């Protein structure tokens, strides 16, 4: 049970971080066109995205992180790799693959706005990767999955 709760918390943290980063990047892009944006408008946007975009990102991250952690455990059981970087790398790679597949299936070129640029994509990968590392450290047995 603890592992499940820690896993769900890890997904929530990863998705929340991704949501906040996307909000900030979007706001920066709009500010570049329209001038400075009032703090109240920025906070309102952050909160809006946490309520509406974060659950979508969590739904995308959840299966990615689950499968990545299982894959990492299988790999780490057979190889002497350092655990945290391996978990991070596998999850980030899986996220990149999943986003590529989603964009192939979706009618629009890129579903998630943050995924439109290399920097934004790397930040998304970092969110899911760090979420998986969070689970790795805080799950009870400190094992991978």
């Amino acid at each position, binding site marked *: 049970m603890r592992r499940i709760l820690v896993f769900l918390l890890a997904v929530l943290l990863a998705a929340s971080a991704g949501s906040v980063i996307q909000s900030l990047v979007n706001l920066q892009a*709009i500010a570049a066109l329209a001038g400075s944006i009032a703090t109240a408008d920025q906070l309102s946007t952050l909160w809006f995205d946490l309520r509406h975009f974060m659950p979508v990102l969590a739904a995308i991250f959840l299966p990615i992180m689950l499968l990545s952690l299982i894959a990492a455990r299988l790999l780490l059981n057979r190889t002497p790799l350092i655990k945290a970087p391996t978990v991070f790398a596998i999850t980030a790679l899986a996220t990149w693959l999943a986003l590529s597949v989603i964009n192939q299936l979706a009618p*629009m070129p890129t579903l998630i706005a943050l995924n439109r640029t290399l920097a934004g994509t790397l930040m998304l990968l970092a969110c899911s990767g760090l979420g998986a590392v969070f689970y790795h450290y805080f799950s009870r047995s400190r094992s991978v999955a």
Partner: protein
Amino acid sequence: MSLNRMLFLSLMLVVAPVALTTEPLTADPLPTKPKVQTLTEGLEYPWSLSFLPSGGFLLTERSGQLVTLGSDGQVLQKLDVNLPDLYAASQGGLLEVLLAEDFAQSGRLFLSYVCGTANANSVCLASANWQDNQLTDVKQIFRATPDRRGAAHYGGRMVQLPDQSLVLTLGDGFDYREQAQNKTNHLGKIVRLQQDGSVPADNPFVGQAAVAAEIFTLGHRNVQGIVYDAATGKLWSHEHGPKGGDELNLLQAGVNYGWPVATTGIDYTGARISPFTRFTGMAEPVYQWSPSIAPAGMTLYRGEAFPQYQGNILITALAGKALHRLVLDGDKVVEEEKLLTELDSRLRDVRTGPDGLIYILTDGPAGKLLRLSPQ
């Protein structure tokens, strides 16, 4: 339903829909609903319709065919259009066919289409001559810049103004929405050109440094409906919003229509695109739809067959699967009625025929040409 589509729809079910409330205006029921007659079936993603002066129709199929129909709708010919660099994929391909004002004498027509490759494509405009049911003298006269990756948001609708200049709508390329505010390029703009592709001297930004002189208006997302009303001299357009925020706009040269700074729509993922629904210096829409209807074609009715539609704007909707009739009072929409909902069909284009009847193209791999007439 394909596996790909099921997977994507499953993903989208997770997306909590956000209710953006816009109180719809409801028109009084008409005394008579129009009679719907199917003239042609089996059209492959038909996109645009025009009327030949000799009777009959010329229409485009997105895959690259120019189809000639008799006045009874019978397919007379499907011509593979040999356009330079045509790229047909997803929303791209052969788009609009527009007959020049002097077509009866000159045989000149214009074709908008997507040109390039998957990783570098754009909207192109070609002129050609139509003689003996063949296209001759095909010339590319304009290519929007810069190229983009992906196959979405092209715009591609056209209209010819009384001074013979052409107004061509262009989309933002989806991934490049911020570029709709960048005057150095054509993404998210409506451009105005001479019939040879050159820039009219009275375009609003002519002579300004680092500005694309072809630009007529800016700040658009994906404009797939434009109509010039000779009776009032007004130029109307509509455009797809994202999730919510479809707009009807009254176009004026040099005006900024706001996308993506000012919008009532949000991203398909639920994310907010901008904190602003309006912004100083940017025109507000005359009317908008949330949730989206996906407007894809437009006519302003000035025929005689439907006196009750006189001066109304008719808009075909893809997602909305209806013909939207907008009643205007000056520049305001005062009533809206949804027609043809019983067809449960995505509607691509609507035109007023020279006979005053209304013609509609349905969307899809088995598209139809429909004719609406009074009961």
